C-alpha cells in the first residue's frame, strides 16, 4: 500500500510539470491542463467506490450465507419416537438402547462430523416455553433425540443416513430442518444474487464511464493529434503520451475510490459494531478478497489505457 502511494505521488508530480522544457517525459498535448481532468478523477473515484462497496457487500453476503449454512444447513436431528408404529409405547430403556445403538452407528459414518444425544433435561429445555420450567416429565414418554452435524448436506447423504437408520429400526425418523431453513436460505440466496447483479451493473457503468470519458477527452484533442501527425510524429509517439495520461487519471481516481471505500467500511464497522456483528458474524477480508480489491485500480487503468489507445489509433487511422 505504501509503495503504491509513493508511485501515486511520484506520478502526480510528473503530471504537474508536464509541458515544461526540461525532463524526458513531457507531454505535447494539453492533457493535464484540461478542464475536466479533476472531474474525471472524481467520477472514476466515485465509481470505484461504488464497485468496491458492492463487491465487499457480496463478499459479506457470501460469508453470511456460509455462516448460516454451516450453522444450520448441516444440522440433522434423529428422532426415536416414543410410540412404535403399531401404536404401543416404548419404555424409556428401550429408547435409550436404540439411541445408543444409533449413535454407535453414526460414529462410523464418514460424513458425520459430530453427534450429540439429547438428554431428558435438554428436551425439557426445548419444551419449557410451552410447558413451563418445572413440569416433571417423568410420566411422559419422551422421544430420543440425537443432534448431528454433517460435513456437507447432500440428498445422497440424507438418503444414505435414512437407510442406515432404518437398518437399526424402521421407526427412526430424520428431521433435516428443511421446512424452516428453506425460506431463510432462499432469502440469503436472493440477496446475494441481487448484490452480485448490482456489482456487475455498477462495474459495467464504471467501464462505460471511464472508457467514454477517456474517449471524449481524446476526441477533443483530435486537432492536436493531427498536428503531431503532420509534423512527423510516429503513431507510437502520440499513443504513448495519451495512454500514459489516461492511466494516470484512472490510477489516481480508482485508488482514491478504493481508499475511500475501505475507510467508509471501517467507519461503518466501528460505528455500528452491533449491527455488523449480526450481519457479519465472522466476516474477515481474506487474501483472495484483497487480491480482487487490488485488481480494481489495475482494471481501471487497463480500461483507460485501452480506451485511450483505441480512440487515438482510430483518430490516426483516417490520416494518411
Amino acid at each position, binding site marked *: 500500500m505504501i509503495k503504491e502511494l509513493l508511485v501515486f505521488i511520484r506520478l502526480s508530480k510528473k503530471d504537474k510539470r508536464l509541458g515544461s522544457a526540461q525532463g524526458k517525459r513531457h507531454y*505535447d498535448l494539453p492533457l493535464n491542463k484540461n478542464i475536466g481532468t479533476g472531474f474525471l478523477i472524481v467520477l472514476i473515484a466515485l465509481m470505484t467506490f461504488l464497485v468496491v462497496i458492492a463487491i465487499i457487500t457480496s463478499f459479506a453476503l457470501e460469508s453470511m450465507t456460509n455462516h448460516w449454512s454451516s450453522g444450520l444447513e448441516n444440522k440433522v436431528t434423529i428422532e426415536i419416537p416414543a410410540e412404535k408404529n403399531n401404536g404401543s409405547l416404548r419404555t424409556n430403556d428401550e429408547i435409550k438402547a436404540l439411541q445408543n445403538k444409533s449413535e454407535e452407528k453414526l460414529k462410523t459414518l464418514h460424513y458425520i462430523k459430530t453427534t450429540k444425544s439429547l438428554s431428558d433435561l435438554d428436551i425439557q429445555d426445548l419444551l419449557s416455553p410451552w410447558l413451563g420450567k418445572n413440569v416433571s416429565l417423568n410420566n411422559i414418554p419422551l422421544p430420543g433425540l440425537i443432534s448431528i452435524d454433517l460435513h456437507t448436506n447432500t440428498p445422497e447423504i440424507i438418503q444414505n443416513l435414512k437407510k442406515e437408520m432404518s437398518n437399526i429400526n424402521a421407526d427412526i425418523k430424520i428431521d433435516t430442518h428443511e421446512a424452516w431453513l428453506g425460506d431463510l436460505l432462499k432469502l440469503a440466496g436472493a440477496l446475494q444474487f441481487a448484490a452480485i447483479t448490482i456489482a456487475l451493473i455498477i462495474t459495467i457503468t464504471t467501464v462505460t464511464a471511464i472508457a467514454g470519458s477517456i474517449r471524449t477527452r481524446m476526441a477533443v484533442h483530435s486537432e492536436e493529434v493531427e*498536428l503531431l501527425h503532420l*509534423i512527423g*510524429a510516429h503513431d507510437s509517439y502520440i499513443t504513448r503520451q495519451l495512454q500514459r495520461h489516461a492511466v494516470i487519471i484512472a490510477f489516481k481516481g480508482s485508488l482514491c475510490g478504493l481508499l475511500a471505500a475501505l475507510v467508509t467500511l471501517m467507519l461503518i464497522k466501528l460505528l455500528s459494531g452491533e449491527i455488523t456483528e449480526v450481519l457479519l458474524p465472522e466476516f474477515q477480508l481474506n487474501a483472495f478478497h484483497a487480491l480482487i480489491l487490488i485488481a480494481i485500480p489495475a482494471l481501471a487503468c487497463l480500461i483507460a489505457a485501452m480506451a485511450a489507445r483505441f480512440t487515438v489509433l482510430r483518430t490516426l487511422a483516417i490520416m*494518411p
Partner: protein
Amino acid sequence: MIKFEHVGLRYGIGSEVLSDIDFTLEPGSFHFLTGLSGAGKTSLMSLMYLGRKPTRGLVTMFGQNINQLKRQQLSSLRQRIGVVFQEFRLLSHLSAFDNVALPLRIEGRAENEIQNNVNELLEWVGLGDHKNRLPMTMSGGQQQRISIARAVIARPKLLLADEPTGNLDNEIGFRLMTLFEQLNRMGTTIVIATHNQAIMENFGHPRLILNNGKLEIERPKNWIQKKIEGVF
C-alpha cells in the same frame, strides 16, 4: 524533390478542386504559389506535406512514390518537411518555446541542443522575450512567427509556407523572406503560397499559378538575373 503527375483532388463528392496537376520541383528550388482565394493553394500544399492523398495521379516525394510507402516511412518523410500552416496550428497549451521545440523533440534530439537552437531562432524572429508565453496571449503576427520558427527549426529539406506573411508588417515580412532565402541557399527546397504582390515582385522567384484547378508556371522576366545575383 517533388513530382506530380496527373494529380487530381476532390473533397467528398464535390467537383475536382485540383485537376491534372503536372509539375516537378528540383531540389534547392524556390517557388511562389499563387492564385485567387479558393483556387486550391492550401489543398495543393496539403498534398505536398502528405496531409492528404490525391484522389488520382501519382505523387513522388524525395524520389519515392508515396503510395508505396508504409505509415512509418511516411512519418519519417514528414519529419524532413517543414510546414507553415495558414491558420498557424500552434498547440495552445505549450509555450512559444515548446511549440518551436516540438519537431526536435519528435526527432528525439538532446535537450541542450534543443535549448540552444530554439532560443537562437526565437531571437531571430524577434520573440526572444516571449518564449514562455502561451500562443493565446500573443498577437496574430507573433503567432505566425512562431509557426514559421517551428517549420524551420529542424532544417527541413522541404519548406512549405502557406501565406506566411499575411499577418506581418512589411519589415518583419521581408526579414523572414530573407530567412527563407538563406535556408534555400543552404539547400532547402521552398514553396511559398502568397497573395502578396510586393513580396513576389521583390524576390523574383518563379511562380506556380493555380487557376480553375490547373497549374501554370510563370518565370518573371528578371528571374535569371536575380538568380545570378543571388549566387554571387
